[in-house]
């Protein structure tokens, strides 16, 4: 099967049992996606799959032949960090860093979903724009656990990135 990962095309042999996560980490050596639980319970394995955030531990690789995967490693342009990554640095939105690539991908995906007007569990109005309030961002980032407890920094980072996105558009 083929996978485009962070802009590079790969052809890879997988077992039918191989998850997308293990195809990336163990077959292709792409370790910018992390494994925290292998059960869809922690968010460490979050990537953008064809532009949407996705838990790679919960899907079989064979179901995604030809897919485009973006990990934290592929978010920035050349040597430049993505604004979300810069915001994590600015607000110390991490400690050990193990959940971080997943948090970063999740934040990029969540901000896109907000922009497109997708409601969340805490959105008051189901129609129209959803605002990037603290409550919205906390809710939308709750699939990504951080055992180091860097939530305050992560929230500040995602808010900063949301603000920049607003200014840019």
């Amino acid at each position, binding site marked *: 099967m083929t996978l485009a990962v962070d802009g590079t095309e790969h052809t890879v042999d997988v077992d039918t049992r191989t998850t997308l996560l293990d195809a990336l980490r163990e077959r292709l050596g792409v370790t910018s996606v992390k494994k925290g*639980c292998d059960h869809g319970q922690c968010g*460490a394995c979050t990537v953008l799959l064809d532009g949407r955030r996705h838990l790679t531990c919960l899907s079989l690789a064979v179901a995604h032949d030809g897919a485009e995967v973006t990990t934290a490693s592929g978010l920035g342009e050349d040597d430049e960090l993505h604004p979300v990554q810069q915001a994590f640095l600015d607000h110390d939105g*991490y400690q*050990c*860093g193990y959940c971080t690539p997943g948090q970063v991908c999740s934040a990029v995906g969540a901000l896109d979903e907000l922009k497109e007007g997708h409601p969340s569990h805490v959105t008051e109005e189901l129609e129209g724009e959803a605002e990037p309030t603290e409550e919205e961002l*906390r809710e939308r980032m709750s699939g990504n656990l951080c055992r*180091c*407890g860097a*939530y305050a920094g992560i929230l500040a980072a995602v808010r900063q990135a949301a603000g920049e996105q607003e200014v840019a558009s």
Partner: protein
Amino acid sequence: MTATPITARSMGTSLDRQDGREKVTGHATYAVEHPVDDVLQVWMVQAPVARGTVRRVDAGAALAHPGVVRVLDHESAPRMPADDDRDLEYSVLQDDRIRFRGQVVALVLAESSEAAREGARLVRVDYAEEPHAVTMDDAEAYAPESGVNGGHETDYADGDLDAAIHDSAVVVEQTYTTPHEFNSPMEPHGATALWDGAMLTMWDSTQAVHAMRSTFAPLLGLGEEQVRVLAPYVGGGFGSKGGPKAPDVAAALAALAVEGRPVRLATTRQQMFSLAGYRTQTVSHVRLGADADGRLRGVGHEAISQTSGFKEFAEQTASAARMLYAAEARSSTHRVVPLDVSVPSWMRAPGEMPGMFAHEVAMDELAVAAGIDPVELRVRNEPDVDPETGKPFNDRRLVECLRKGGERFGWTGRTGPTRATDGDWWVGTGVAASTYPTLWMPGNTCRIEVLDGGRYAVSIGAVDIGQGARTVLTQISADALGVDPSAVDLAVADSDLPVATVAGGSAGTGSWGTAIVQTAQQLRADHGADPEVGVHTTSTTEEYPDMEAHALHSFGAVYAEVRVHRWTGELRVPRLHGTFSVGRVINPVTGRSQLLGGLVMGLSGALFEEGWRDPRYGHVVTQDLASYHVAAHADVKDVQAFWLDEEDPLATPYGGRGIGEIGIVGTAAAIANAAYDATGIRVRDLPLTADRFLG
């Protein structure tokens, strides 16, 4: 020479986290991510019985599965040298004994993780089962003979507690419990390992590269020079990676079995709950007796916890009761119940976390019983000297933490449950004190070499598990040498570097930092202010902190606001403030993250964390992150950490004390006390689940 205090230049400023870019891009490589070719994946097979023997391991079907290369069991695994005193937790696959359900009984090595996992499923093991003891009622508690964790005495008594309680006008006697809790770092334990016939190299998820080496070399019959442990990035640990665990040993054995081929062992999240240590459940009987004005006459704390029967770990739950408040009579004891279960170990603030939950909820109860504001009650019981040792404190500023923290939080004082409401929510506030001893480990060695262009190479085998060692040790080095941090090339996380102690006990930075300062000062003494390129100095610390003359501790005050839903019992924590006295904070940004991390883990323990054992076999049934809940984004609202502006030259030459653990200590008590203020319901058992507030 002994280090002398240094002047802060870089310290106190927020130097960027030195490994931040690698972390946000995903380029930081953790233990099992170290790139190696031709790797074999290792899967652990675990025992389904709690006690007994392995009769026979049939690997036939496993070996027939495509991709499976080897199966190791207690007969075929590499032998450790005979040693009657071998630590039985590390004695992986060396005999046929089963000591707990979940113990490693075989390893499957395969070309892919899918094959290794399927192979593990196909291994057939016959067991002879024996009767076992797995609940607290199944065995007799005993008093640990050689003290409890942290170097504390098992029992302590000063004065006549019974008489003091008898003479008291106000008495609180209650029992408090905390459940099994699991460190659950986001990066599961694991290792990549390679035995090339002469040298065992391990890229390991550990908090202590040298402790790994010094344990592994004799365990495996190798010389220390034949073992190298590297831990460039470690995805948290909170104590569980403080020493080797069975998966590390299993990875090493697998590597030894396939000379020349690297192996990779990643513990699954489920396996983490049986092979990576945990905080045991604790039961605390607390007795407080005071005069009508709240002055304590007696403090008693009897703590019971659980240990595994084959390796003792005794949580020092009742230790803080010995030094926290002035009272003429204080007594504190520890008992442990030995069970056929996995080995407990360190989890962030062992002892202080569960013990201070009990103690500080009891203090809140005493405040209510005496009709005194809980802050005022603590202030009235402030001791002049350390009640336990009789020594003066280095710089006890608990009262200042309580006052300043209270001011910021908007604490106005109260004498009973407020039971304020806001719509369908009860709203309350609570307070608790925190304390953590300043530990310090001798025997750290640092090497500093003068490089070209005014640069210095500083080497020490410290480990950065997220606390920010790479960053703050760069700052300490810079100030010790009197240079800019950009002139420091710091090397850490490799056992080939000079010997360093564990990143744990809130003692990593202090112990390593003292070695760095001492070596920098030795370098200057030997080679002057402008040394030649290539000269170097190595030195080892024997002493620094003023342990003889002073009792060294940190303190803090945690304030919480809690809302409890009157119909569902749901509990939320909209505000959580910690104010700490921890000496100099080397880097305000990474320091704040450390303290916030402690507060968040305390909140998590207060609200969610609870491990359950199956009473039939003693294994943990809440063995994943869907059934063992930890705090998520939506649970963490306004959490803030503050600290007093201070420095403590008695503790370290750079003036700081450890900050990794104190944040967790008083947090659960503050939240429980706030829940009482909101509802009038006193919960004495963690976690504070919704059912406690209903009916």
